[in-house]
C-alpha cells in the first residue's frame, strides 16, 4: 500500500511534468501545480499509511526503496511544504507570463519535487547520487527563471554545486564501489557491511567527501556564499522549495551517511558541531544587516541550518556513548535537529512565500521602500507574523520548542564546547528576533507609502499556501506532539514523552498548552483592566515644513540596527575579507590559465590586441603539438619536392643543352 502510494505520488508528478503539452501558459501552470498538489497530498497519505509499519522495503522501477523513520521525517517536509508551495504556484507564476516556457517550468518543478521524494526513499548509493544530481539540475533551471540577475546567481550556484557537492559524491561513490565491487551491491547497508576493508586513509576521504557535499548543499560557512543571491533572484515559490526543502536534503544525507554508511565518531561530531555553531553565528549576524527581504531570509536560512547541524552534531557525538545519560543527550540532540529541520521548513517556507506575496503586490523586495502593508494585505501580514514569531523562537511557536531542545541537549552534555555552542545559539536567537522585528515592522508596520498604497491583497490560492505553513507553525508550537510523533521515529520511541498537554524528557516538563492558557488569561486581563489607548495615529511633526517628503525622515530598514552593525564592524570586515580572498583566488587562477593558454594559441596573429582574458585568447588560432612536430616534416618534404623538381628540370635543360651542343 505504501509503495503503491509512492507510485501514485510519482505518477502524479510525472503527469504534472508533462502538462506542458497543453501549451497555453496559464493552463500549463494551473495544471502542473494541480498535479503537484495532488502528488503532495498522496505523500501525506503515504506518511499516515506508513506510520507504525516501518521500515518498509520495496522496489520501484528496478531500484531498491526503503522507507524508515528518517525518510518519513523528510517525506513530511517535502509533502507539507510541497503542498503549500504548489497551491501558491497556482497563481504566482502569472507574474512571469512574458517569459513563456511554461512547459520547462512544469517539467523542472515536478522533477525537482519528485527527485527529492526518490532521494529520501532510495536505499542505493548510486541512485541517491543520481536523484541528488537531478535535484541540483532542476533547481538550477528554476533558479535562473527570471533570466536577468538570476543568470549569474544560478551559474554561481550550479558551478559551486558541481565542484563541492557532485565531485565529492562521485568520489564517495567510487570508494563505496571499490569495497562492494558491483553495481547492485551499492545499497547503504551493503557498503556499511564492507567498510571495514577500507584503508584508514580512504575512510577519512569518505567522511570528508560526504561532509563537503552536504556542507555545500546546506550552505555551511564557508560554502554559504551562493545562497543569498540564488534565493533572492529565484522566483519566491522556488526560494521556498530551495530553502524549505532542498537544504534539508543535505541534513538527510548527513544523517543517513553518518549513521547508516559510516559510523558516528566523536571527532566527526565535533567537526559538524563547529561548522554548525560558526554557521549559525555568521549567517544570522549577516542577516541582521540585510535590507532586501529575500536576502535577509536567505541569510537566516544559513543561520538556521547552523542550528540544525548543531543538533545533529550532538547526536553524532554522543549517541554511541557508553554512558546512558550522554547517549540519551545524543538522542535528544538528533531529534531536536530533525525537529528544527521540520520547523525551519515550515516557517522559512512561509516567510519566502510572504516575501513573494509582497513582491507580487508591491513589485519590490527592498525593505527600505515598502511600508504599511498590514493595512493593505492583512492576511499576508498575519501569516508573516506567525512565521516570524516561529523563526525567532518565541514560546508558543514551533521554533521555540526545537531550539529549546537543542539548548537543553547542549547544556546537559556537560561538555564545555557543546555548552558554549548552546549558549551562543541562545544569544543568536535574540539576534534573529531583532532581525525579524525589523523585517516585520518595515514591511507591514506603519502607514502605506506611495509605492504600497497601490498594492492589493494577493489571490486566494497564494494566501492558502502561506496559511498552511504559518498555521502549522502555531499548531506545532502549542501541540508539539504533532511533530514529535514523526521526528522521534528515527531515534526510537520512549526517549521523549509527548502528549497533548506537553512534552517531557529527563525529568524536564514543558507544557505549551498551559503556557498558552496563562498567557491568554493575562492578555484578557490586560484588555479588561488597562485603560484604552487613543486609536488615532499621530503624524510626525515636521516644524511646519512642507518641502520634506515624509520618506526622508521615516525609519527605514537600514536604520534599525545601524549602531550595532558599527559596533561589530570588525566582524563583518573579517567575513568580507574571506569573500575578497575567494574572489582573488578565482581571479589568480584565471590569470594563471591565461598565462598558460598563451602557449596554446598563436597570439601574434591577433592585431592590436593584448591578451588580458580568456576571451581574447579565443580569437587566435589554436596550436597543436603534433602539428608542430609533423608539419615541418611535411613542409620539408614539399620543399624537397619543389627543389628536386627544379633540379630535375635544370638537369633536363642542361642535358638537352649538352645533347644539343654535342649534336650540333
Amino acid at each position, binding site marked *: 500500500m505504501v509503495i503503491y502510494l509512492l507510485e501514485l505520488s510519482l505518477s502524479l508528478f510525472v503527469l504534472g511534468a508533462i502538462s506542458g503539452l497543453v501549451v497555453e501558459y496559464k493552463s500549463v501552470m494551473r495544471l502542473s501545480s494541480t498535479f503537484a498538489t495532488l502528488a503532495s497530498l498522496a505523500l501525506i497519505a503515504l506518511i499516515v499509511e506508513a506510520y507504525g509499519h516501518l521500515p518498509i522495503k520495496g522496489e520501484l522501477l528496478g531500484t531498491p526503496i526503503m522507507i524508515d523513520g528518517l525518510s518519513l521525517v523528510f517525506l513530511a517536509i517535502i509533502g507539507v511544504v510541497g503542498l503549500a508551495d504548489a497551491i501558491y504556484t497556482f497563481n504566482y507564476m502569472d507574474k512571469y507570463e512574458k517569459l513563456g*516556457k511554461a512547459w520547462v517550468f512544469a517539467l523542472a518543478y515536478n522533477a525537482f519535487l519528485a527527485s527529492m521524494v526518490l532521494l529520501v526513499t532510495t536505499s542505493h548509493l548510486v541512485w541517491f547520487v543520481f536523484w541528488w*544530481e537531478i535535484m541540483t539540475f532542476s533547481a538550477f533551471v528554476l533558479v535562473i527563471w527570471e533570466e536577468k540577475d538570476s543568470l549569474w546567481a544560478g551559474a554561481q550556484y550550479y558551478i559551486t554545486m558541481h565542484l563541492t557537492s557532485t565531485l565529492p559524491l562521485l568520489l564517495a561513490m567510487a570508494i563505496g564501489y571499490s569495497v562492494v565491487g558491483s553495481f547492485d551491491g551499492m545499497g547503504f547497508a551493503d557498503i556499511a557491511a564492507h567498510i571495514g576493508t577500507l584503508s584508514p586513509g580512504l575512510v577519512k576521504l569518505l567522511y570528508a567527501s560526504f561532509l563537503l557535499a552536504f556542507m555545500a548543499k546546506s550552505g555551511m560557512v564557508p560554502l554559504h556564499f551562493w545562497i543569498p543571491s540564488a534565493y533572492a533572484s529565484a522566483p519566491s515559490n522556488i526560494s521556498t522549495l530551495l530553502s524549505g526543502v532542498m537544504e534539508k536534503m543535505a541534513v538527510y544525507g548527513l544523517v543517513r551517511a553518518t549513521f547508516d554508511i559510516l559510523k558516528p565518531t566523536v571527532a566527526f561530531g565535533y567537526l559538524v558541531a563547529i561548522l554548525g555553531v560558526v554557521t549559525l553565528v555568521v549567517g544570522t549576524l549577516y542577516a541582521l544587516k540585510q535590507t532586501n527581504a529575500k536576502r535577509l531570509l536567505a541569510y537566516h536560512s544559513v543561520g538556521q541550518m547552523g542550528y540544525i547541524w548543531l543538533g545533529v552534531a550532538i547526536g553524532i557525538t554522543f549517541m554511541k556513548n557508553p554512558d546512558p545519560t550522554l547517549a540519551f543527550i545524543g538522542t535528544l540532540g538528533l531529534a531536536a535537529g530533525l525537529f528544527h529541520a521540520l520547523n525551519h521548513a515550515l516557517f522559512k517556507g512561509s516567510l519566502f512565500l510572504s516575501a513573494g506575496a509582497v513582491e507580487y503586490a508591491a513589485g519590490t523586495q527592498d525593505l527600505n521602500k515598502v511600508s504599511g502593508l498590514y493595512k493593505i494585505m492583512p492576511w499576508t501580514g498575519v501569516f508573516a507574523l506567525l512565521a516570524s514569531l516561529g523563526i525567532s523562537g518565541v514560546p508558543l511557536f514551533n521554533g521555540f520548542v526545537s531550539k529549546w531542545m537543542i539548548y537543553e541537549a547542549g547544556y546537559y552534555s556537560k561538555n564545555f564546547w557543546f555548552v558554549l555552542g548552546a549558549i551562543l545559539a541562545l544569544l543568536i536567537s535574540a539576534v534573529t528576533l531583532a532581525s525579524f522585528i525589523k523585517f516585520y515592522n518595515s514591511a507591514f508596520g506603519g502607514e502605506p507609502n506611495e509605492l504600497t498604497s497601490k498594492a492589493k491583497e494577493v489571490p486566494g490560492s497564494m494566501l492558502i499556501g502561506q496559511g498552511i505553513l504559518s498555521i502549522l507553525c502555531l499548531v506545532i508550537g502549542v501541540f508539539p506532539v504533532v511533530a514529535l510523533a514523526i521526528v522521534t521515529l528515527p531515534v526510537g520511541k520512549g526517549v521523549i514523552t509527548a502528549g497533548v498537554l506537553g512534552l517531557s524528557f529527563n525529568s524536564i516538563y514543558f507544557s505549551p498548552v498551559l503556557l498558552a492558557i496563562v498567557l491568554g488569561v493575562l492578555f484578557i486581563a490586560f484588555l479588561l483592566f488597562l485603560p484604552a489607548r487613543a486609536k488615532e495615529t499621530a503624524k510626525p511633526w515636521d516644524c511646519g515644513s512642507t518641502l520634506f517628503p515624509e520618506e526622508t525622515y521615516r525609519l527605514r530598514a537600514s536604520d534599525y540596527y545601524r549602531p550595532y552593525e558599527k559596533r561589530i564592524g570588525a566582524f563583518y570586515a573579517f567575513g568580507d575579507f574571506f569573500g575578497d580572498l575567494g574572489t582573488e583566488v578565482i581571479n589568480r587562477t584565471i590569470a594563471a590559465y591565461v598565462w598558460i593558454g598563451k602557449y596554446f594559441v598563436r597570439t601574434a596573429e591577433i592585431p592590436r590586441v593584448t591578451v588580458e582574458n580568456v576571451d581574447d585568447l579565443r580569437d587566435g588560432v589554436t596550436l597543436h603539438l*603534433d602539428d608542430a612536430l609533423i608539419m615541418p616534416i611535411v613542409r620539408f618534404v614539399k620543399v624537397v619536392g619543389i627543389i628536386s623538381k627544379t633540379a630535375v628540370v635544370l638537369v633536363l635543360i642542361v642535358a638537352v643543352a649538352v645533347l644539343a651542343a654535342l649534336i650540333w
Partner: protein
Amino acid sequence: MNSTIFLLSFLIPWLLGLIEFKLDKKKADIVMLISALSSLALTSYGLVLFLGNRGIYHLVYIHSQGLGEVFGFVVDTMSVLMAFIVSLTALLILLYAIDYMSSSNKLHPVTSGKGTFYGWMLILEGAVLGFVFSSSLLSFLVFAEVIAIATWGVIRYYKTPNARHAANKAFGFINLSMLFGLLLVVVFGLVKYHDTSLYALTQLDSHAKLWVFLGVMFTAITMSSQFPLYSWLPDSTEAPTPASAFTHSIGIVEAGLFMMVRTIQFMDGIPKTAYYVIAILVVITQVMSIFYYPLQKDAKRLLAYSTIAQVGIMYVALLGAMLGSAGGLQASVYQLFNHSLVKSLAFLVAGTFGFSFGTFDMKKIKGLRWILPGAAVGWFLALLGLAGVPPMGLFLSKANVIMTGTTTVRGAPWIEWVPILLVLVDATIFFLVAVLWLKSMLFGEPSYEKGKISPLMCAVLIVLMVVMTVSPFLTLHLTESIRFIGG
C-alpha cells in the same frame, strides 16, 4: 546465428553508396533512405534475434592456408549492439542531412552534389558496420582503410582550402599510424604465424604480445585522436555537420576504441608495460583537452575537443580492463554508447546555428532561446549531458568508469589513480565552460533574426533527445554481459 543479416547490413550501404555518386537531389535522397532504413532494419532484426539467443558466435567466411583467417565475423553483445547504434545514428543523421544539405543553409548552401555526400556517408556507415564484426586484424586493417578513405571524402566535401587541408591531414595521420602500427602487425602476423585472427592473439608469447599490442594501440589511438596524433580531429570539423556528427559520435573515432576493446578482450596477459604506455598517453590527452576547452569559440571545435576527452575516458576505463577487470570493458563500451547519442545531438544542434545564422561562432550567438527555441533546448541538454549531468547517460557511464577504475587501482601506487581522477577534473572543466557558454548564448538580447529549421530537422533533434535519455537505462544491463573472450 544467421549472420547473413549482418553481412547484408554493410553490403547494402556499400552498394547503394557507390550508386549514389551518380545521383543527385530527390533520387539521391530516396536511395539514401532505402539504404539507411534497410541497414537499421537488418541490424535491429539481428539484435532481436541475438537477444533471444545470446552467445559469442565466431564465423569464418574466407580462410586460406597462407593468410589464415582473412574474413570472418564475431557476433556477440558488443558487436550487435554497436551495429544497432551505428545504423540508428546514421539514419538519424542522414535524415537530418536531407534538409541540412540544401540551398536554405546559410553557411554552406548546397545546390548540387548531394549524391556524392550520401555516397561517402553510406560507404562510411558500411565500413563501420563491417569493422565492428571483424574477427581478424587483417580485416580490421581493410575496413579501417575504407573508413579512412570515406572520412577523407566527407571532410573535403566543401572543397575549400581548409577542408582539403583537413581531409589530407586526417588521411595522412591515420595512414601514418597504420604504416607504423596495424600494417606492421598484420605483416608480422602473416609472415610469422600465417594468421591474424583475434582468436590467435592469446597464443602469442609475452614479448610478441607487447609489440603486437603496441602496434594495434598506435593505430587505435590515432583513429581515436588521442595524443600524440590528435589534432586532425578538431581540424576535421571543416566537414559538413552531419558528417562531423557521424565521425565524432560513432565513426572512425569510436572504431579505434572498438578495435582496442577487441584486442584487450582476446589477448589475455597483456604486459604491464603496455598499461603504462597507454596510461601516459591518455593522461597527456586529458590534460591537454582540459586546457583546450576554454580557448574555443567555434561550437564544432569545442565539441571536437570534448570528443577527444570523452574517448579518452573510454581508454581510462580500458586501463582497468588491462588490469584484468571485465568491469572496465563494460564501462568503456557503455560510455561509448552514451557518448555517441549525446555527441550526435550536440553536433546536429550546432549544425542548426550554421544553418540558420550562418556561423558557428558562439561569441556571436545571443538570446538563442528566443530565436531558435528548439536548438536552445537541445544545446542545453547536449552540453550539460557531455559534462555528465543526469538524466543524460554520460553521468552513469562516467560514474561507472570511475567506480570500476577505483576498484582496480585500490591499493596501487598513487600514480595509477591519476587517470581516474582526471576524468573528474575533465568533466568539471567542461562543465564550467558549458555553463558559461550556455549563460551567454541562450539568454539576453537576440543577436540574429528569428531562425528557422525544417520540421524534419526538428523531429530528428527531438527523437535524439528522447533516445539519449532512455537508452542508458536499456543498455546498462546489456553491457554487463561483456566479458573477456580469449584465454
